[in-house]
């Protein structure tokens, strides 16, 4: 019997789990076909299907109860590579207000340099025929207004920058 890999990190959509392969080997999981599984986990009987997989089996698409999950398995070796420092996460604290949905800017209630208080209306965004007031959630000072009235914006687009 080959050696069992050590605990690996598994991403499933935006969730992450640490899974011990030896526990998986002991779990009550039946492979019904090359892609179909039934597992009894904590007395729960669940069916799952592997929809896609790469050659190594570390990047997969798995469906459970009608929901599809994109899976990335990072085994011990991958984790060491990650730790050796190729990850480039650095958190800059630029404060800006982004569009929560795509839409059309109807009107803008603030000007550059203006002091604003929590709860003040920044602008009105129309999406799907609804007018939504975009409010600010903290006190601050408007550094830049990045959009104009009448402009269509995408989800996540910066509307206003704050000092």
């Amino acid at each position, binding site marked *: *019997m*080959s050696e069992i*890999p050590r605990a*690996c990190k*598994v*991403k*499933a*959509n935006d*969730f992450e*789990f640490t*899974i011990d*392969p030896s526990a*998986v*080997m002991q*779990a009550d*999981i039946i*492979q019904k076909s090359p892609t179909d*599984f039934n*597992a009894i*986990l904590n007395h729960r009987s*669940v069916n*799952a299907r*592997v929809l896609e*997989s790469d050659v*190594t*089996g*570390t990047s*997969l698409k*798995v*469906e*459970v*109860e*009608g*929901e*599809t*999950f994109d*899976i990335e*398995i990072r085994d011990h070796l991958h984790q060491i590579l990650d730790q050796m420092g190729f990850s480039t996460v650095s958190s800059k604290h630029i404060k800006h207000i982004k569009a*929560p*949905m*795509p*839409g059309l800017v*109807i009107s803008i209630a603030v000007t550059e340099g203006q002091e604003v208080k929590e709860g003040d*209306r920044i602008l*009105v965004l*129309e*999406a*799907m*025929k*609804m*007018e939504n*007031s975009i409010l600010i959630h903290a006190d601050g000072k408007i550094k830049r207004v990045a959009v104009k009235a009448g402009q269509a914006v995408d*989800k996540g687009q910066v509307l206003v920058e704050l000092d």
Partner: protein
Amino acid sequence: MKKILVANRGEIALRIMRTIRKMGIKSVAVYSEADRHSPHVYFADEAVCLGPAPSSQSYLNGEKIIAICKELGVDGIHPGYGFLSENAEFAQQVTDAGIEFIGPTPEAMRIMGSKLAAKESVKKYNIPMVPGIDHAIEDVNLAIEVADRIGYPVLIKASAGGGGKGMRIVEKADDMQEQMERAISEAKSSFGDGSVFIEKYVSSPRHIEVQVVADKYGNVIHGLERECSIQRRHQKVVEETPSAIVTPEMRERIGEAAVLVAKSCNYVSTGTVEFLVDDKLNFYFLEMNTRLQVEHPVSEMIIGLDLVEQQIRIARGEKLGIAQDDIKANGHAIELRVYAEDPLNNFMPSIGTLTRYEKPSGEGIRVDDGYEEGMTIPIYYDPMIAKLVVHGKTRTEAIQKMLDAIRQYKIEGVSTTLPFGTFVFEHEAFFSGNFDTHFVKNFYQPEKIREKQKANAEVAATLAVKFWLNKQDELRPVENKSTSWKRRLAH
């Protein structure tokens, strides 16, 4: 009638055309530049592009639609819901052009299209109404005065409104200014009419409506009620019939009231009379929707009528072929509106491409949709992808069927209200029938959906590891395979 133009898009255009074809009539689709690849265009016998994507330049261009009818020899227009469906001027222009408008008369639309005129119209029939002001106001101070008199919370409603648009709840006088401004502006931009009025906000209200069908000879019947209390942003997401709380005695009274409302405006075609029902089962007339409702399929499933077929028959001058006594509820039907919205993020529109789209199927499952895999949800229109409708012998059976159908429904690329549906149909309050229009506020916990997703994600992750381990095994030389032991034993 030989040829009907459907002045709409998406699922409703397709649904109407199916009936048109069934009746041996030709169909004409209209579409905007954003909808060239829509199923309703593929399905129609003829199709004409109206113009650019924004509705004001396409689906709301009544003049162009009438011109197309003349050019193609169309003798009837079905407006669907939304867009021009409740526009009395358009209905008048259609009629004046010698084309049959498949719907009510412009006069009935005018009366019921203005909530204030509607209240006036039904007054003589002693139909109960919610306390409030019976004329339009724009003055904030007057609004505060009225609200003080009838008591907070109050509801600001656009006189020309519908579908929850232009409606604002005001809890206290301080919020009146902002809410009045928004409501008036929204009413102006959505309906071209900024007049709003105020009425008492009934707490624990249920929204129950009655389907009516009327011919051109004064015969009016009702097609039972629909319970539409599960809403978000004052817009319906789940509808069912019969309602779990309506008793046979109440059904008769509310049905009679609905018929009287229809008679008060000499209504013709199918329509819906909406009522607010309080916790003591008192009902109040809200408004009449002078169109085919989004949620009409639940009624079709239990009364066994094709309501679009009824509309066409009525439009071509046939008498109602059914009497009130013929209307009997067969089983139970539930509808879930599948919107491209994120139920984990305050039901924000979720725009994108349907990278995977597989519909559920089976006995008693009906999907009215206007999308196919690979299509993009445009930002210009209502974000509804489909209506998932199920029929069961009992309410319990219908709920179970719905849960199964949701599991079968595979949509990827955008977030949808499907997980919200599962939450509702598994919730004790829905199951017992003890809920009101505040279901979302009172019971909805997005974190429950999140927890469930997490549990499923963990199963998926576990099984993926299993799959990966098996694969690693397969990739090794045969003599090292653990399975070779079993093979040896089996020999």
